[in-house]
């Protein structure tokens, strides 16, 4: 069993949920004052990319 697969899938799942949160949450509730960026959108994208990378690594490892 390659543990990178469940980690990758979990990160993609959480990342996409965060992106959805970032796109649907009204700007007033994004707490932009303390962060200055749409944290949901930015960190969601980063987590999705990390998850995709982990899944990709399991593919490369297998071939």
């Amino acid at each position: 069993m390659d543990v990178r697969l469940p980690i990758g899938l979990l990160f993609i799942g959480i990342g996409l949920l965060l992106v959805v949160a970032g796109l649907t949450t009204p700007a007033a509730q994004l707490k932009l004052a303390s962060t200055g960026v749409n944290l949901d959108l930015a960190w969601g994208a980063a987590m999705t990319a990390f998850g995709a990378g982990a899944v990709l690594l399991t593919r490369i490892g297998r071939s």
Partner: protein
Amino acid sequence: MHLGAIDGLILGLYLVVVLLVGWLAARKTKSGTDFFLAGRSIPAWVCGLAFISANLGAQEVIGMGASGAKYGIATAHFYWLGAIPAMVFIGVFMMPFYYGSKARSAPEYLRMRFDEKTRAFNALSFAVMTIIGSGVSMYAMAKLIQTLHVLDAPFAAAGLPQTWIFHAAILASALVVLVYIYMGGLRGAIYNEVLQFFLIVAGFAPLAWFGLKSAGGWEGIKATLGPAYTHAWQGMGDPATNRLGVDGFGLVMGLGFVLSFGYWCTDFLVVQRAMAADSMASARRTPLIAAGFKMFFPFLVIIPGLAALTLTTAAMAPAQAAGPGHVQAAAVIPVKLDSASGKPMLDSAGKPQLDYDLATPNLLIHTFPTGMLGLGLTALLASFMSGMAGNVTAFNTVWTYDLYQAYLKPEASDAHYLAVGRLTTAVGILLSVGAAYMASQFNNIMDLIQLICAFVNAPVFATFLLGMFWKRATGHGAFWGLVLGTAGAALHHGLTLPLGSVPGIKGGWLTVVHTYPSEMAQNFWTAIWAWSLCFGLTIAGSLATRPRAEGELVGLVYSLTPKLDEPGGGWLRNPVVLGAIVLGATLVLNLVFW
């Protein structure tokens, strides 16, 4: 704080994946070796990350943030001084004996090296400590969920009383951990610990970054809080000139040597992760890989506490915040309220006392929007579960092999011990739940039991050290050194008191012959006395008794074991080189934050 639907989905997704990993691991768990030792088949990087996670309970994430707010960056001593050197030492010097002896647990090594009674003493005290450890951690977690009011709305919507939140938090998390360990054993726990490691980093890295940003960066923290909070070593010469209230020698010897090596080099909870590795080379690299990550953890868990204090200080005294950074004032850390009168509690200088335990959780609520809140909460839950699973897997192994097989039913089949291990997992978790409720009922009893654990942990490193590196050490010497060292710790505690405390649970219950400037100083010196006593008495007792034949100690003692061939694959796989790199980098961190 209100959780949205997306927060709930993130939490739910995490729980599903954790159970799935347990189920995947279960398909490979067919024998006792699979269940208790993960078949000795795990690659080094997986063991290394599990090594960190198993130690990283929710108390650490919350507690280190609280200490960051209370003591400043000097809290990093618990990592750079109190963890990294010991992790390098076990990887380079001790792992060949743990892994090479083929012992299945740390107490079993003591039986092979010394005798039955030394093993029994260590196994019993360790089993009790793990149950209390996971119980206290479970209690802290449930209380935090209650304090943050994250489940108030869902419970109200479902028509359930708010007092059930505490019970639900305990039972739900206990059940999830039970299911994945019951199915997948140590392999299930280790795979999940790696997953939890990444989740903890994903949840806390943005918190540290944006907390730092709103505190005006490191410059803002320095300007608002002053140098006492931003230097790790300055003022360590005298207890009066540093926020920890300890002297430099007590810090280096007590924390940096006795407590740190006592935990990282002998506690089976972490050692078990390395013993699951697929080869000797991997086992030795496990703590070194862990140390490579661990040295950066202060930035992840201490910085949020410091940032929360900076924001709070700026809100309470705006004049102090006039620094080069742009600090946003916000009373993130609440003032402690007297439970009887409801009025703010004041310290001896008449200033309101802050509830530091809420520094990190409240910064999370202050900084994160919905979505990220769900992630932050999931990260907290992940840290709690990884810590609890570490305790539970160590408990079921020590109970099954070192107590049940050793004294209750020696000659049974592997399938029998596997079944006992699974049953023990359930019993262990049930006992932890009991310990959690005990903690919620009797605060002082819990303090007392934790104190006894500290007495047990401090001297044991002397036993392992002499066992591995002095061939003359004997079983009688080791046993009596350990027992009297533990008693010595209790005696020292009974004779000393931290400044400003009343005799009782804090010490001085016999008579007060010495007063320490702080509770931390007393802890460090209790450890130093206990270790020195155990070390000296083990040597004296060994010299007075008959040594074992040298032939029986091959593979168990340094001087009688042939040197290992260095593993192939380049210098980066060499534990000595890796250890030197880790120590060098840690030294640099100490100098930067001097």
